[in-house]
């Protein structure tokens, strides 16, 4: 059954939001909407809007809780720019979103109108003022009696309203109601048939309500796709990846936004024979993981900024002792406790240089949700092959973004074979460094003849403590060499666009979707811009200088802090660079600028597009918003 009505407009993509007070179920409605869209074959990106407090007060701008769903005919790689339509359960929650630049003139607001008749005069006034203000700002406001309509179906509309809204959206975007019903069954079946039936009824009611109350309606052609897909957020992908990598132990301490990955793993790990250890603190968490890894069971620890800070000393030990280990770092805003729920890409330099002394290690960054899965598998493999800790960087944007992607094919080889317990030839040292590559194989406890003592002190190839110049220099060289060897096996990154041009944008991590969308838009307008996205940060992928040489201007786009050159006291000598820019400048000696913000938000493609235009002197920018209030 399809509720499509005549007079529909066909669009390539559409962005909807549902915002409410916390606990009103907006997120569930949006998730189902996203799942249905994905199952219809559309590209989808879902991202939750999370309030700062556990239970913020009702009707407060800071309390906005909700979800954004971007649906497209093509694959969707990011949350997009301003939303096309928002359903709001009260008017207050819209203020925070507006301040964050979530909407632009023309955005449709479907607003619960019960506040108009609230017994509290103050609320009525707030409501009226808001509606007036929204209209003035160019938003198209539809005041709807949604709760009232629900009341016809359920005595407690507060808990059912979200499904009613789902119905409205299904109508407006011609979603397949059978698919929605299917989702509802899956989610609510544990609560009994009555609940399922009620929710289905609400959805259908919402659909009909929209058909009668609203005159517009959009159609999005689905992507034709015959591969089987899964839909997850980045933290679930990480969790699935951990399990598929064959690692049997996740040793962690809770910290937002990393924790939900561990929650997910904890809920399914026993089924694959794994164990989540919640340690007493982050130091113990990494120490425990190192212990297990040393004993042959390469382990994983998952954390965010403040947790990484505490793991610094052990990270240095793992490098020094060449113990394989996977560290998943789900970045959030910093410094210090910073912005716990918000995105930032500002732990790159801390990952690289945080530990004291020389600590070469492998650092990867996932650029998509799908990569969150595959890179964990890669990370484990690299950790073992190169006998070193590997840091996998993701961030709050990937962690909470939801997207369909090809279902991974589990490989038996990913699941490691049982650990080697055969005899070790005692004449082979514990660090039997290949002089050329620094690589070596390690004895695992249980291997007769391999007995050696791991130490964080400077040591010889037999792991004997040694303070002489030659041993220390040798050890440092061997550990560093491995990184060069890995680099020699990598390919140069692919260029998105032409090999030469006026501007090259260099990115890493979760900004890929937005950057490429913006670049593509500019390319369509014959602007000579290309992009390149780095997955390896240590070592860097090879061939960068050559790629860079093809462009007149080079900038990195990153979600971390850089001084802006126009600000007081900031000049060529004092400017502090964005993090990847600093690395690339040192590496290539090319004048790599950066464009970065710390707004706690994903960078929107529109903002990048405008920056491209600004840099190249074409003001194609269609939006009247300035960067400062558009919240990229």
């Amino acid at each position, binding site marked *: 059954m399809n509720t499509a009505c005549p007079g529909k407009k066909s669009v390539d993509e559409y962005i909807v939001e549902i915002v409410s007070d916390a606990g009103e179920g907006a997120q569930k409605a949006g998730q189902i909407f996203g799942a249905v869209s994905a199952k219809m074959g559309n590209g989808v990106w879902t991202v939750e809007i999370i309030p700062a407090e556990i239970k913020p007060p009702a009707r407060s701008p800071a309390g906005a809780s909700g979800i954004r769903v971007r649906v497209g005919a093509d694959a969707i790689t990011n949350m997009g720019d301003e939303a096309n339509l928002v359903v709001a359960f009260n008017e207050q929650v819209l203020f925070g979103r507006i301040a964050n630049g979530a909407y632009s003139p023309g955005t449709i607001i479907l607003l619960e109108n019960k506040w108009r008749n609230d017994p509290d005069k103050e609320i009525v006034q707030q409501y009226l003022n808001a509606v007036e203000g929204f209209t003035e700002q160019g938003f198209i406001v539809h005041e709807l009696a949604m709760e009232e309509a629900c009341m016809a179906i359920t005595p407690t509309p507060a808990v059912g309203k979200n499904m009613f809204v789902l119905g409205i959206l299904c109508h407006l975007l011609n979603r397949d109601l059978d698919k929605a019903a299917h989702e509802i069954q899956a989610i609510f079946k544990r609560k009994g048939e009555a609940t399922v039936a009620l929710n289905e009824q609400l959805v259908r009611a919402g659909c009909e309500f929209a058909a009668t109350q609203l005159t517009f309606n959009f159609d999005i052609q689905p992507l034709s796709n015959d591969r089987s897909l899964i839909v997850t957020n980045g933290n679930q992908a990480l969790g699935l990846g951990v399990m598929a990598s064959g690692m049997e132990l996740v040793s962690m301490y809770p910290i937002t936004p990393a924790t939900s990955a561990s929650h997910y793993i904890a809920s399914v790990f026993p089924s694959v024979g794994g164990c989540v250890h919640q340690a007493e603190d982050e130091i113990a968490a990494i120490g425990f993981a190192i212990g297990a890894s040393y004993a042959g069971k390469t382990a994983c620890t998952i954390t965010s900024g403040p947790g990484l800070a505490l793991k610094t000393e052990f990270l240095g030990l793992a490098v020094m002792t060449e113990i394989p280990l996977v560290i998943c770092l789900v970045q959030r805003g910093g410094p210090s406790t910073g912005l716990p729920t918000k995105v930032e890409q500002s732990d790159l330099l801390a990952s690289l240089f945080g530990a004291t002394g020389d600590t070469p290690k492998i650092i990867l960054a996932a650029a998509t949700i799908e990569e969150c899965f595959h890179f964990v598998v890669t990370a484990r493999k690299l950790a073992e092959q190169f006998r070193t800790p590997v840091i996998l960087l993701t961030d709050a944007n990937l962690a909470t973004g939801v997207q369909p992607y090809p279902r991974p094919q589990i490989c038996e080889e990913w699941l490691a074979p049982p650990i080697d317990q055969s005899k070790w030839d005692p004449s082979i040292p514990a660090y039997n460094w290949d002089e050329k590559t620094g690589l070596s194989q390690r004895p695992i406890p*249980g291997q007769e003849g391999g007995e050696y003592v791991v130490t964080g002190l400077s040591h010889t190839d037999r792991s004997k403590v040694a303070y002489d110049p030659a041993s220390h220099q040798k050890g440092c060289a061997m550990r560093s060499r491995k990184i060069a060897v890995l680099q020699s096996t990598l390919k140069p990154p692919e260029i998105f666009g032409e090999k030469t041009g006026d501007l090259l944008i260099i990115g890493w991590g979760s900004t890929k979707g937005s950057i490429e969308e913006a670049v593509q838009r500019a390319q369509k307008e014959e602007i000579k811009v290309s992009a390149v996205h780095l997955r390896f940060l240590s070592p860097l992928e090879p061939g960068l200088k050559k790629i860079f040489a093809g462009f007149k201007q080079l900038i990195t786009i990153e979600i971390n802090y850089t001084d802006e050159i126009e600000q007081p006291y900031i000049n060529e000598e004092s400017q502090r660079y964005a993090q990847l820019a600093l690395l690339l400048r040192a590496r290539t000696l090319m004048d790599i600028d950066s464009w970065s913000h710390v707004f706690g938000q994903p960078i929107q493609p529109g903002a990048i597009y405008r920056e491209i235009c600004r840099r190249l002197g074409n003001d194609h920018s269609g939006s009247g918003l300035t960067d400062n209030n558009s919240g990229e």
Partner: protein
Amino acid sequence: MFGLKEDWSLDAPPRYFTLEDYTGNEARWCPGCGGHSVLGVVQRICRDKQLPPEKTVSVSGIGCSSRFPHYMATYGFHGLHGRALPIACGIKSRRPDLNVWVSSGDGDCFSIGAGHWVHAIRYNMDMVLMVFDNAIYGLTKAQTSPTTHQGTKTNTHPLGAPLPSINPLTVTLGVSNVSFVAQTVDWNVPHLYATLKTAYEHKGFSFVRILQRCPQFSEHTYEEYKKDASRLKLLKHEKGIQLDDKITARFPVQHEHDPSDKAKALTLANDLDPIPIGLLYWDPDAPSYSDFTRLGLEMPVDKKIAALNDALDHFAI
């Protein structure tokens, strides 16, 4: 093999381990350091228990005492200051087949490692923790440790340590799930041996505080106790540490103590003169965190793959 029963198999030459099989690098502690006798005793226990060196891991933090693993010929992990226990617990988590001995110092365990100490007691994973308590920071040259006696002059407190020392036994006994608490001294080798052997035999986390002489920096701390055996109170019980009568006879002060009585253990732990030595507390039935961490260890690959596919199905569209 050849369809023979396993115990008929010709493949497994019997291995017998001698003390040399446990002897690593020459111990570089000062002459007269209590470390030497603990090392000898642990090597003897390994020999007497015929622990395969490859199945034995000696874990430590940083400090004089934490040099221990280097002096063993087993696997070893000389870790970070204060962090021996997380490493040891991690090793044990997915390798319950390994024998784990942990060496720590009074600074390593009770100061920088205090949080891990409390939590490792609670985890109750099967290993022996030996705290070499010389009441001083040895390796870094004579700073105050939590067990340094109040008033003792050290390099960081030249006018004397300002606070009463911590009592490691009462803290340990205060942690729920504690399962084995003993105290011994480095200079009574038979007692040390019997205590560590009993600790090793306990299936759970054995906390053993070893009063350890450091002639270099805390020469006087245990002098009196060593000279005058009546400053020690030997705890005796059928469930306690078993000693030869000849050895027992050397202790003028003896005390019958049932190690399953925690309240009495606490009272004893509070006695500082004479110092109780022996088994203060023992609960063989305390649950072990290993029962949780080892789950799934034996799961076959096909079952894992099936479960992984189920997990993916959950997200399939």
